[in-house]
């Protein structure tokens, strides 16, 4: 009797203890992340919404609550449509050419060759990501300098006999921002895809070879299907990061010439900080948040991320 009662008590205590522990664990493990998310994401969004309904301008004073910022966004801002169009070109151009496609090519090629050479090339492609952004862009500015001393012009004029130096910053600014961002973006895809390729059991490749599969067939029928999930993740993650970051563009072209390379995030920055229209900047920023959330949700559905998050897909048993 007593033993049963004792067992029951222990069991109850144990249960009570585990409930308490579950709560404690929740606080310990998720608490910091929740606090940080609220502090650095939710609170700024709330502040941004509040500011967008004021006339906050260069001296940080609010004299009235108003919807005029939104009227400006929808009615009078003629730049906006051009800016949004450019943003999509920039985001999808960088993604399609570099962050996903080129990252994939790098991963496949560097895992197909000998390990030492593969690691060396991956290391080289990581250099842009490791170097400080100012230094990286400074190298770009030297490379595309419109004078004869610019690296690109030296190559074109001496090796290809071009007559006059090219001024790529004026003639092809959008291509430049896509390439300079892409060189950095490609390395992230490369690392993730490389890890995923390494996770594919080797016997599958041997089996395919026995069946007479060539290199392309192996890539087409083994590697790519196994990379579906990492590709989905890289696409969504990089889309969001490209939507909101503009440091390389600001350093390379300052958003110019004219407004040619002013992507949405940089446009918000220029409006708010170069002319002191903080209320208007906040209203524009709110749309950027909305665009980001919408893109994330579309990506979530399109790539069926729910399944990706359930369990690893590339382990074959």
């Amino acid at each position, binding site marked *: 009797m007593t033993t049963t009662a004792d067992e029951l008590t222990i069991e109850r205590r144990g249960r009570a203890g585990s409930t308490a522990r579950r709560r404690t664990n929740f606080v310990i493990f998720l608490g910091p992340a929740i606090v940080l998310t609220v502090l650095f994401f939710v609170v700024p969004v709330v502040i941004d919404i509040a500011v967008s309904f004021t006339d906050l301008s*260069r*001296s*940080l*004073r609010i004299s009235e609550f108003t919807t005029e910022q939104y009227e*400006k966004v929808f009615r*009078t*801002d*003629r*730049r906006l449509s051009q800016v949004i169009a450019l943003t999509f070109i920039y985001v999808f151009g960088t993604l399609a050419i570099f962050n996903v496609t080129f990252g994939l090519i790098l991963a496949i090629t560097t895992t197909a060759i000998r390990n030492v050479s593969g690691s060396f090339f991956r290391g080289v492609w990581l250099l842009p990501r490791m170097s400080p952004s100012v230094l990286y862009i400074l190298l770009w500015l030297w490379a595309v300098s*419109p004078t004869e001393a610019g690296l690109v012009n030296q190559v074109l004029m001496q090796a290809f006999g071009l007559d006059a130096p090219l*001024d790529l*910053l*004026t003639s092809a600014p959008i291509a430049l921002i896509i390439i300079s961002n892409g060189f950095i973006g490609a390395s992230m895809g490369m690392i993730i895809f490389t890890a995923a390729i390494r996770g594919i059991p080797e016997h599958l490749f041997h089996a395919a070879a026995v069946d007479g599969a060539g290199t392309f067939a192996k890539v087409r029928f083994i590697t790519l299907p196994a990379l579906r999930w990492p590709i989905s993740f890289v696409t969504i993650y990089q889309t969001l990061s490209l939507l909101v970051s503009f440091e390389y563009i600001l350093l390379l*072209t300052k958003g*110019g*010439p*004219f*407004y*040619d390379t002013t992507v949405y995030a940089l446009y918000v920055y220029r409006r708010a*900080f*170069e*002319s*002191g*229209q903080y209320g*208007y900047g906040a209203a524009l920023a709110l749309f950027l948040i909305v665009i980001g959330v919408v893109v994330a949700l579309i990506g979530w559905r399109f790539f069926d991320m729910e399944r990706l998050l359930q369990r690893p897909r590339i382990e074959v048993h």
Partner: protein
Amino acid sequence: MIHWKIGTAALLSAALAAGSAAFLAATPLLAQETVKLELWSRQDPSGPLRPGNVVKAAERLNKELEAEGSPKRVEVAVRESPAKGFDDDALQLLKVFGIGEGPDIFIAAHEWICAFQEDGFVLKLDDYIAKYPQHFGTIFPSLWSSAKCPDGTYAIPQDAEARMFFYNKKLLREAGYDAAFVDAMPERALSGDLTMDEVLEIAKQVVDKTKAQYGVLHRPNKGPDYIMVFNTYGNDFIDPATGKLLLERDKLAAAFGWFERGVKEKVIPANNTAMEFDALRKEFYTGNAAFWMYGIWDLGSVAFPTYGLPQDEKAFFADWGWITGPAPQKGGAPVSLTHPIVYAIAADTKEPELAVRLLGHASAVDLNTDHAVTTTHLGIKPEQLEDPRYAKAWPLARATELLKITKFLPNNSQFGELNGIIFAGIQGIESGRLSAEQAADFVIEEASATLEDVTVK
């Protein structure tokens, strides 16, 4: 035991007595009150004495206060801002004032002063200026107008300069112009005989017939100089009747047209606004450009020390020179622009009187001349002209000739923002994104959408 008590009491009494004596002796020292005045200044290599003179002036003011028997002493703390230009600096400072952390005194470009006045951040100075004629009585009246807002004076002029088109005489001679023509250009510009388009023509000859790559170069960022071009085509940007910003489409298009023709003729580089400031200077001072639209202080801060242009007047004018902003057509009026920097005092400073007196001393003839001759800026008082150092600094004397035709940027609180839009228009034209007409429309649309009270004609 008792002797211990007596001893202790004696010790305590002695300590108390000594403490009181020391306290009484120190009383005059304690009564001296140090007033800390904070000065906001941009780190600007073209004018390190702007804040430097205020620091020196504190010594003079303290001597004066001592002589008066005042217990107050002034101490200046300089707060340096790393802003790249006066516009960025003003926006930064407006925010600082906005959160109640503003300095007591600040240095600003004159066209921003009414932005501070509009928000109530800056002290009205008319009464103080009248009270201290020994400090402010002889400052050039024309300079005061750059420190005024609609209801009074809000700043004290600190310096002035002149903006012009520098030109390389050697290149012009190489391009086939004779020495008489080249040397007569400044006079012709002043009399309205030399026109803006003739400058482009001369520049084109230089580009076509010499090794020089560029015809006309101008600053690569937002600033005052290129406003000269707009002034000469009749854009004053202010409606004299209302004081509001005024944009006249045809006059804007005419000014933008000059930039457009310059780029079409391959005289102004399409990437002028993408180039670095120092690179542009290098192109001009090393003989790769015919004209450089900038300001007189560039000689003292860059041309002489960095590129070794001759410092002797005669030797300089043998191969180099400058013209004022030419007229739009023959017989028209030439223009020049001066862009005074000003001292201003915060509206909420605890010691306005002391701040005014401090700036009065900082505006002393000898200190202001120190700044003028070391950085090639124009002085603020006629007495400075008698200073042998000033007289020896020939660029100043020669630039002073332009002051009779010189204009200011409008003292409108929104002009800084409008100038940003105008600069974007120039960038649009030069990079081939806009025509002159489209640039005029762009400025009008953009200004109407983002600024308040803009009159469009």
